[in-house]
C-alpha cells in the first residue's frame, strides 16, 4: 500500500496550455465547409446532338439582357413574378388525349404547355448579365418545380417532396428507403426538371 501512495503523479497543469495551443490553431485554420449550391447538368457537346424540335407552346422563354432585366416570353417581368409564371406554364396541362395531364391544375390554355413532361424552360443570358442575377433566376425556376413537386407529393403520399428527399439522405429514417426512392422518382417523372440553356431557334 505504501509504495502505491508514493507513486508520483504526472503534473497535468500544462495540459490545458497545450490543448489551448492546438485549439487556437484549429480555430484559425478552420473553414466550415460551404460546398452547397444549385446542381445542373450541362447539355452534351454541341456537335453530338441533332437539333430537337419542340413545339413553341412547350417552351417557356426566360431571357436576361445586358441590363440585368428579366424577360419572359419577350415581356419585362420582375423576379418575384417569375415563379408564378413558371408554375402556371408548367402546370398548364393544355394537351389533349395522349398528351393530357391528369394531375395538372392549370388553366389548360392553348398557348401554354401541353404537359409538364414536355414543358421546357429555356434560359438565355447575355454576356453582360450579372452572375448574381442569373443565379437568382435559376433559383426561382427550381423553386417553381419544387413547389409543384411538393404539391403532388402531398396529394399522393401525404408528405412534402423536400421532406422525402431529406429522409432519403438521413441516416435516422427508419422507413423503407427503396420505396421512398421509387416515390421520389415518380414525383420527379411527373414534373421533370427541364431547364435548358442551349441555344434555341424560333421557327
Amino acid at each position: 500500500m505504501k509504495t502505491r501512495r508514493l507513486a508520483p503523479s504526472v503534473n497535468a497543469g500544462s495540459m490545458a496550455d497545450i490543448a489551448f495551443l492546438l485549439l487556437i490553431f484549429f480555430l484559425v485554420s478552420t473553414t466550415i465547409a460551404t460546398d452547397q449550391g444549385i446542381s445542373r447538368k450541362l447539355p452534351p457537346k454541341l456537335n453530338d446532338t441533332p437539333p430537337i424540335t419542340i413545339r413553341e407552346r412547350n417552351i417557356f422563354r426566360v431571357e436576361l439582357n445586358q441590363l440585368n432585366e428579366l424577360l419572359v416570353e419577350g415581356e419585362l417581368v420582375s423576379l418575384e413574378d417569375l415563379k408564378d409564371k413558371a408554375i402556371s406554364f408548367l402546370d398548364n396541362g393544355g394537351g389533349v388525349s395522349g398528351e393530357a395531364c391528369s394531375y395538372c391544375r392549370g388553366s389548360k390554355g392553348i398557348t401554354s404547355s401541353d404537359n409538364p413532361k414536355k414543358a421546357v424552360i429555356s434560359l438565355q443570358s447575355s454576356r453582360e448579365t450579372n452572375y448574381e442575377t442569373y443565379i437568382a433566376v435559376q433559383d426561382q425556376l427550381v423553386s417553381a418545380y419544387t413547389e409543384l413537386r411538393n404539391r403532388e407529393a402531398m396529394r399522393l403520399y401525404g408528405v412534402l417532396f423536400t421532406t422525402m428527399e431529406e429522409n432519403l439522405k438521413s441516416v435516422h429514417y427508419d422507413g423503407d428507403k427503396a420505396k421512398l426512392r421509387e416515390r421520389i422518382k415518380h414525383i420527379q417523372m411527373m414534373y421533370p426538371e427541364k431547364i435548358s440553356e442551349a441555344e434555341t431557334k424560333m421557327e
Partner: protein
Amino acid sequence: MSKFRKKQKVALPEISTASLPDIVFMLLFFFMVATIMRKDILMVENKLPMADQIEKLEKRDLIMNIYVGKPSSRYLGTEGRIQLNDKFAKLEDIKPFILSEIASKRDGVKPFLITSLKVDKKTKMGLVNDIKKELREVDALKINYATIQGGTTNNIP
C-alpha cells in the same frame, strides 16, 4: 447549530481548474472534426451569391473547384479571372485541368465527379458561359453553382 458555525470558519475553497483541459479538449475535438483545410489559397474575390433551392455536396473528394472572380486587391486587374488550383488560368487551361483532375481519381468514382463553380457574384455571365462551354467539350457535365443559403430577392439590384 454547531455544525453551521464550523462551516463558516472554513475559507472559500479555490475553484478547481482540473476540468479545464477537458473542456478545452472538447472544443478542440469539435474544431478538428469540423475543420477542412483549404487546399487552394484564393487569389480572386469570391463572394458567392445567395440561393434557396440548394443541394449539399457530400463527398469532397469528388469535387473539382473552379474559382472565378476579379483578382483580389493584392493582384492587378479588375476583369473577372479564373483560378485553378493556386494560380490564375486562362480559358484554354480549363480543359487540361479537368482532364488531369479526372485522371487523378479512382476509376470507380469518375462518373460521379462534380465541377463546383465558385463564381463571385459580380462576375459577368459571358465568362461563366465560356467556362461551361469548355466543360461541355471535355464531358464534365455535372456542375454545381456554389451558393450561400439565403433569399434571392436581394440579388437583383
